């Protein structure tokens, strides 16, 4: 229970030794210590060290890092475009949201801005990703509470949005869609109708989810008043995304610092006051509704502005004749080899974006070479992991999945 950095420890152990980042814990005989994870049906790619007093958790230690893939370091040895397919693998279910801010940072360094159609296409894919990501989180949450029906339904319905993304970009999950200055592909002709049908279908399904899951007396009993994060606590812990908004903090990067064309779109940021697991569940339903509305608006805009460019004029002029033909005919942008070894002017840039799980921040530094000098990523899950440490204690062991699922924590995203 008591913990103190080595050296200042009152336990007398290892006095004088100072190991950075290490803590000494006194062994408490009355406490029952269980290791949930990394090989456990309810842990994900992480370990939660839980100390129990009877059925009550007195201490929970999130032990993250099991899927650390050194993405920041790998980005430094790859040419500027190559981190895009790399970085989207940290949140494979939310790929476009994860890479758009990186591309935005590059655009800031290159002083380039995408044409509006490219921006709308990015927003379209971002929102499709957001819906798919929330549905994924919902499914995991459902099965954490033993509700396998919710799991199957959401994973089945998520498939529709994954398919939409595939039709738009050619890949189910790892789209690598945005490139500095634009996007790789234009929308197919019949895409708007498909998107509208998916939106209509999903709206009906949300009602069914409410009836079987959100208004299910067992589920409500499990979630109501569990894992309450007060407004102050959320601000103090630096929680982001839907979890912060469920605690009454009206903060969304799409609102606070609109990127792409979010300032031209009409949508609301749902905010709840309760801050418990139930509010965190409901807010995701509301966000799905908003995302569906954004998808409709984006598709409408794209239909009205057919034939507009998806890469800047100066990039288009540089293309050889064959590539121009492909671009005119199929709407695909074939990148030149020169793009692989392009140099970006020296400088520093920060870009932010709102992923399904919250705010993602990129700090990109260039020394004028062909690779980034430094790419720093702060992901929402990395910031939400702290909930385990400070919110879980005091709850019962069976509340752990209820809180874990409700904050929609995604270990690969946190570990990068």
């Amino acid at each position, binding site marked *: 229970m008591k913990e103190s950095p080595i050296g200042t420890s009152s336990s007398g152990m290892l006095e004088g030794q100072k190991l950075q980042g290490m803590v000494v814990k006194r062994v408490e005989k009355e406490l*029952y210590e269980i290791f*949930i994870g990394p090989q456990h049906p309810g842990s994900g790619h992480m370990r939660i060290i839980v100390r129990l007093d009877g059925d009550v958790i007195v201490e929970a230690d999130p032990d993250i890092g099991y899927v650390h893939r050194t993405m920041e370091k790998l980005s430094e040895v790859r040419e500027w475009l190559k981190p895009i397919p790399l970085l989207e693998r940290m949140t494979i279910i939310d790929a476009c949201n994860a890479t758009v801010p990186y591309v935005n940072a590059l655009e800031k360094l290159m002083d380039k801005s995408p044409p509006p159609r490219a921006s709308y296409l990015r927003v379209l894919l971002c929102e499709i990703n957001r819906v798919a990501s929330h549905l994924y989180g919902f499914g995991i949450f459902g099965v954490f509470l*033993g509700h*396998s029906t919710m799991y199957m339904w959401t994973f*089945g319905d998520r498939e529709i949005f994954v398919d939409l993304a595939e039709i738009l970009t050619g890949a189910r999950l790892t789209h690598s869609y945005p490139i500095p200055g634009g996007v790789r592909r234009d929308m197919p002709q019949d895409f708007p109708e498909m998107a509208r049908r998916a939106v209509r279908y999903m709206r009906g399904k949300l009602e069914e989810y409410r009836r079987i899951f959100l208004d*299910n007396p*067992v*589920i409500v009993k*499990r979630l109501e008043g569990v894992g309450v994060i007060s407004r102050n606590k959320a601000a103090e812990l630096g929680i982001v995304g839907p979890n912060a908004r469920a605690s009454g903090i009206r903060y969304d990067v799409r609102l606070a610092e609109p990127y792409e064309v979010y300032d031209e779109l009409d949508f609301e940021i749902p905010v709840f006051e309760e801050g418990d697991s139930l509010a965190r569940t409901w807010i995701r339903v509301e966000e799905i509704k908003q995302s569906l509305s954004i998808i409709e608006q984006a598709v409408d805009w794209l239909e009205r502005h057919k034939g507009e460019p998806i890469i800047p004029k100066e990039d288009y002029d540089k293309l050889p004749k064959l590539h121009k033909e492909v671009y005119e005919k199929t709407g695909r942008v074939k990148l030149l080899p020169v793009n692989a070894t392009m140099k970006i002017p020296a400088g520093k840039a920060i870009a932010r974006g709102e992923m399904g799980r919250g705010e993602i921040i990129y700090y990109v530094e260039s020394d004028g070479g062909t690779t980034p000098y430094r790419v720093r990523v702060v992901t929402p899950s990395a910031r939400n992991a702290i909930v385990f440490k400070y919110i879980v204690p005091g709850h019962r062991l069976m509340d752990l999945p209820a809180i874990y699922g409700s904050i929609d924590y995604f270990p690969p995203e946190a570990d990068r």
Partner: protein
Amino acid sequence: METILYLIAYPPLWQVLILGFVGALLVAMVAIWFERKAVARVQRRIGPYWASPRLGGFMMIVADLIRYATQQVIIPTTVDKIAFLLTPVAVLVVTILPLAFIPLSPHELYWPVASMEYSLLIALALTTLPPLLTAVLGWASSNKFSIIGSLRESYVITAYELVAVLAILAAAASTLSFNIAYIVEAQQPVKWLAILNPLAFLAAFLAVLMSTSAFPFEIPESEHEVVAGPYTEYSGILYVLNMGGGYIRRFIYAIIIALVFLGGWAPYTPGLDPFTGFIIPSLIVLVKASIIVLIMSFLRAVYGRYRLDQALDAAWRLALPLALLGLGWSIVLAYMNLI
């Protein structure tokens, strides 16, 4: 002919071996198959299919059974070997045992035990044994998740056992007899206690859900906190004995409920020969019990699981008063001579 039929229908043999082990195995398999198939239908899946498309994938369950039976049984070095190996077998035997004290015919000739005067009490008492062995499982496994699972099981026992006993004994109160055969005969033809006394029936249903860890009370083996609860360390055939034990227990409870609440063989008046007097009534009870088991299995598609303390709360605050009310209403029924 008569002798051969009597040999087949020799009550202890028929009831404990054929209806008990074979019937319970079949019902458990059908229940698992139905659970997987029905839940798949709710969840927009197909469920088991390719093992036998014409049987709706039923052979998948047989295939699973074969796989479990031939799988390596891993015995961790830290376990208490004797308890670890014997308890699953003991669970199965003890679970079937109540059948020996349940009459499935109104005629004394076909009772497995000569006297059935206290059959309801004895059968109920025997149904309370398997949960104790579950506690032994967890202790023998020497695994933290197993121990937590067993502890949860023992918490849940305290909550549902009283409810189950009170609710089912309400039947005895209204018919003024502990003899199951007499209780069934009193319900002829459709004076079923489930209709006359729905409170006790509901309480008994809830208690059975809790005792057999069906949803929404699947707490002792809740996967996302305690992996598989008491069964975490088990593999192969020993695991099947444990898991199947749960289904068979549900089946035994369902037989008791079918007898005391759903009128047993009620609309049917058994004859005297072995076929009409014993085999047909017992099959009617089997069908009724299977329906109860299937309904209980289906709840998986609808509910999540309650938290441990909420389940205990529900048992003490909701199910226990319900059972007491049912008992009171039974006494009223008996007093007014309604049954």
